[in-house]
């Protein structure tokens, strides 16, 4: 019965109530959004690579190597020679290697030169292999395999012809126009940067650059696509390579041997460890972000508190009338507490709605701009905890004006002096 009274009372003051609800809703949406971003960004990163023991590149920094080789964020400082790669590909404790060559792009998507073994050994998530939605891996020199997002955004199908550009962005004059590639395979969706990558063979990368010297095509010395086929297309350098070892326990020794290789400055990282280093680095920023979001919720609840306290004065007559029909002071207390609880409950529900809608609207943009895959699913345990905690906090906070009202009704009786 008290609940009905509380709801009726709130409905009577609709305008103020809706504003207060929105304050709480927005703060809850912010908290939910920040937590979601944190969790999903981490999951998305962690799911990108699996079952690869080492990643090797030119010496820069472990996090930098992880970012450019696996996540395609940032750039390599230098390449590593084919000879050095071969030396470690033939190491007795190395089971498999996959070379990677970065530096070209196609209409905003990165182009990766690699071997056919990539499609066999690259795993993501929990050891899931890459599968083909259509077509197959590259066989011919100018074949290309594209990721799911490349196909979807550019509307490409099998047999599509494409020009690869030099560097990250194509402004039309740095394309390898004379050597078009042909799409022969489209990969199934993975939710990783693979979806936004165009894969070609290492020989294909060499063929594209065969008449380029010092970064520009040499006029008068152009080699046609067919002529390039006849030439020696063994790569002289690659950007990085992935390694699978015969035993994970020898990871440290092989890593140390690569790091100390006298002929060329290289470094090897354990992807899981490098990723953990990245989280450790970001943990301070994460904690700060979380603290700020919680403070925003506190501010929202403070807003609710001040609204209720402000209206106490004008509701003294309302309380007096309730007393006159038999409400006890304790019931007045409960009524106010229930009101605050309802603010909390509907505020958090509205906040969850705002958060869900924002997520749906922003998901595509986040994926395209940052490679972040945020999925909207049923509320997880963290989300339930947040919703429950805010409702409970609102109820607790509501006991303050409830107590004040309780004291007022004791003092007022039926003759209210406003």
């Amino acid at each position, binding site marked *: 019965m008290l609940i009905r009274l509380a709801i009726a009372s709130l409905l009577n003051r609709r305008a103020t109530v809706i504003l207060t609800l929105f304050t709480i809703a927005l703060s809850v949406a912010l908290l939910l959004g920040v937590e979601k971003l944190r969790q999903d960004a981490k999951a998305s990163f962690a799911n990108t690579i699996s079952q690869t023991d080492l990643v090797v590149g030119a010496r820069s920094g472990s996090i930098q190597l992880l970012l450019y080789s696996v996540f395609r964020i940032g750039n390599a400082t230098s390449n590593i020679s084919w000879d050095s790669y071969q030396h470690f590909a033939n190491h007795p404790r190395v089971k498999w290697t996959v070379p990677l060559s970065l530096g070209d792009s196609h209409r905003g998507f990165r182009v990766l030169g690699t071997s056919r073994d990539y499609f066999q050994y690259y795993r993501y998530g929990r050891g899931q292999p890459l599968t083909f939605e259509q077509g197959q891996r590259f066989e011919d020199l100018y074949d290309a395999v594209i990721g799911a997002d490349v196909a979807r955004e550019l509307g490409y199908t099998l047999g599509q012809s494409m020009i690869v550009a030099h560097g990250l962005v194509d402004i039309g004059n740095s394309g390898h126009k004379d050597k078009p590639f042909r799409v022969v395979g489209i990969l199934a969706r993975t939710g990783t940067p693979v979806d936004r990558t165009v894969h070609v063979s290492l020989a294909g990368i060499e063929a594209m650059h065969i008449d380029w010297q010092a970064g520009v095509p040499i006029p008068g010395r152009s080699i046609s696509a067919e002529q390039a086929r006849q030439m020696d297309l063994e790569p002289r350098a690659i950007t990085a390579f992935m390694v699978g070892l015969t035993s994970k*326990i020898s990871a440290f020794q092989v890593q140390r041997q690569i790091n100390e290789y006298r002929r060329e400055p290289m470094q090897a990282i354990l992807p899981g460890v490098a990723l953990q280093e990245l989280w450790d680095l970001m943990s301070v920023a994460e904690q700060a972000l979380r603290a700020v979001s919680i403070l925003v919720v506190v501010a929202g609840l403070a807003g609710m508190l001040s609204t209720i306290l402000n209206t106490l004065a004008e509701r003294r007559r309302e309380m007096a009338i309730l007393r006159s029909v038999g409400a006890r002071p304790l019931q007045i207390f409960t009524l106010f507490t229930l009101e605050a609880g309802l603010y909390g409950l509907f505020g958090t529900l509205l906040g969850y709605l705002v958060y869900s809608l924002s997520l749906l609207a922003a998901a595509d943009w986040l994926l395209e701009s940052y490679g972040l895959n945020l999925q909207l699913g049923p509320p997880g345990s963290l989300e339930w905890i947040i919703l429950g905690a805010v409702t409970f906090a609102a109820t607790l906070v509501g006991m303050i004006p409830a107590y004040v009202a309780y004291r007022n009704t004791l003092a007022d009786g039926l003759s209210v002096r406003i």
Partner: protein
Amino acid sequence: MKVSSGLAKCLITAGVLLSTLLPSLSYAVDEVRALDWNDLMPAGFSDEALFADYDVSSFDDGDPEGQRRYEEFQEILQSAPVIESLDGQLISLPGFALPLEGDYEATSLFLLVPYFGACIHVPPPPSNQIVLVRADPGVKIETLFAPVKVSGRIRIESTDTGIAHAGYTMDLTNIETIEDF
């Protein structure tokens, strides 16, 4: 005397029951042996024994002979002997966890090492000072820098092919952060 004989009967029955139960209790609760890293190395495999053949102080950093000897040394470290009798035992070991597989919330495979972030002038730990730990369901590794105590059943597995080599693996039962050290 009636009271004491009744009491005596009670005590005797209790004693008989307990003595039959206790042995079965000790089978039901397997005791976790707390080990430290030295317990994973067979006697005789020590720094002194290994270094006896190599006078490392006489080599410069860039000396190719020194480099060759160092590489030989590394090979020995990668095939370090294990203690066979530890196979199947329930133990606990303190160390640092380096995640290999899994996502942030649940690491399903990690390496347990005795120290972390050591300087580059010493070789990495030999293969009998590293444990490959499997966790199912996965556990959360908060940070690389927090020492943890890992409990589980330790196994000796030949994880190498071609080169005869055995290493320690463990099926994790419990992991906790070490608070004071």
